[in-house]
């Protein structure tokens, strides 16, 4: 059984969660990654959901931040103000998972407007990118998703470059972008390629990126999931192929 690129992406996302971490996730691949982490190496990882769900044990397979499958076994069912204000802005959530239509070289995210096309807007993303110490972005790697500069900055990465985040009044941040081609990282800097997905090359990454990312001197290869991990992902967490429709064709 070979893992699909997006499955490796999700498992690598899960590896960013340490046991005992408090993480905030939306739905989609981040939620899948967090659920995967809880059921493998991080059973004590605690999830916060923006709608007000504090520390649930997720029942597969929720599709929304208010899905009843996300409310199971929680410490508390509270409010959005409590989750995004009382936990995230308050500084009690270390890691946030995000997506986005555009991610630029300074890891700013646009989820509002792209070239006259209306997107959903921030939701909790701006709050997560403003207050969490670490932001993990899971996304497909497409050139149009990685422009030099976002058309509109919804959620702050490093804004106009080194020092700008602090100047704006925002706390320090580490960003890790995980795609189906590579891993990129930044700390008060431009995104830099630090790892490649199995089979991917730096040339492929650069050809599919709208800016020219620098690369670490030695690029590691992301470890694919084990057979048992893949079985968990496919048979327990997404048996109906909600998150991986491409699996239906296999």
């Amino acid at each position, binding site marked *: 059984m070979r893992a699909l690129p997006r499955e490796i992406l999700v498992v690598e996302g899960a590896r960013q969660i340490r046991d005992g971490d408090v993480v905030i996730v939306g*739905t*989609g691949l981040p939620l899948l990654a967090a659920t995967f982490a809880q059921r493998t190496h991080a059973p004590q990882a605690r999830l916060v*959901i*923006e*709608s*007000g*769900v504090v520390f649930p044990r997720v*029942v597969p397979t929720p*599709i*929304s*931040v*208010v*899905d*009843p*499958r996300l*409310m*199971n076994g929680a410490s508390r*069912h*509270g*409010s*959005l*103000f409590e989750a*995004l*204000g009382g936990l*995230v*802005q308050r500084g009690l959530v270390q890691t946030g998972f995000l997506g986005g239509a555009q991610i630029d070289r300074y890891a*700013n995210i646009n989820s*509002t407007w792209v070239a*006259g*096309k*209306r*997107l*959903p*807007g*921030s*939701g*909790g*993303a*701006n*709050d997560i990118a*403003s*207050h969490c110490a670490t932001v993990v972005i899971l996304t497909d790697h497409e050139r149009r998703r990685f422009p030099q500069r976002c058309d*509109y*900055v*919804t*959620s*702050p990465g490093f*804004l106009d470059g080194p020092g*700008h*985040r602090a100047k*704006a*009044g*925002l706390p320090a941040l580490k960003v890790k972008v995980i795609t189906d081609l590579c891993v990129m990282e930044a700390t008060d800097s431009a995104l830099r390629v630090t790892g490649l997905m199995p089979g991917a090359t730096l040339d492929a990454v650069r050809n599919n990126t709208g800016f020219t990312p620098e690369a670490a001197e030695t690029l590691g290869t992301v470890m694919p999931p084990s057979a048992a991990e893949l079985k968990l992902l496919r048979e327990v967490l997404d048996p109906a192929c*909600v998150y991986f429709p491409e699996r239906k064709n296999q």
Partner: protein
Amino acid sequence: MAVGVHKLVTAAEAVARFVTPGAVVGMGGQNINRCPMALVHEVARQGLGDLAVVGCNLSVPLDILVACGLVARTEHGSGNLERYGTLFAWRRAAEAGSIEVRDHSHLAMATRFAAGAIGVPFMPTRSLLGTDVLRGLIDLDIARLMDFDGQPIVLMRALTPDVSLIHVHQADPLGNAVIEGVTSHEVDMVRASRATIISAEEIVPPGSLGERPERVTISEAYVSAVVHQPYGAYPTSAYRRYDFAEDEIKAYQAVARAGGAEFDHWIRRYVLEPERFDDYLDLRDPDAVRRLAMSSSMRSML
């Protein structure tokens, strides 16, 4: 707001009395959970237009009001249905410039409601700093960037809707209401509003909630009218009572995406023509098979 007064009325009476053209409408619910569908259908039927719809995640209720041409402006954190896609009527209107969209983050909206809820003109947040969201809100004089002890801080202007619409699990005729599961932005939004209409799955006798007042999520102090409407959030969910109806949400998304005459027909047939919300429910779910399935799906998760 009236205290100790019986407020049980029909949706038609409540909406006629408390929703006016041009109103700022606080929208309850989030995404596929506990959206005030029955109340929104009634607003659409009465054709109350030029509305500003405000909330955090605005979903199907907003989209239906936009489709009916009743919305002038939205103020929100996001407009979408997550896995089920964007809000097509809202997106088309936003892209055409026929509605004004005022973007916030969810916390920025919740902060504005929190200010309104305790009667102060603003409340600070450290969200939005450095972004285009903040620039837009400063231009509208909704946000101000200030300095506090040498650190930048954002002041969000209080938001006090003219009327809020929410759907709850239980209410007594006085308006004391119980919500189970998450409350999203709703409690502060209601407290900040000049009037609030509540629809409830179940009406309990006056005094019965008084045995456990700590269970009351929203006090009668904030409630103007109470409407009894089982499955009032259909096709969205009500935690512990019924799951959301995925097929129904997908069906709406399919016609909303198509737009044009097909969508107009759907809106007319299922929103505007039914006399009451129960008629709509029976049209879409003739033998209540789907509603029973929604309830049994929820039970299986508890």
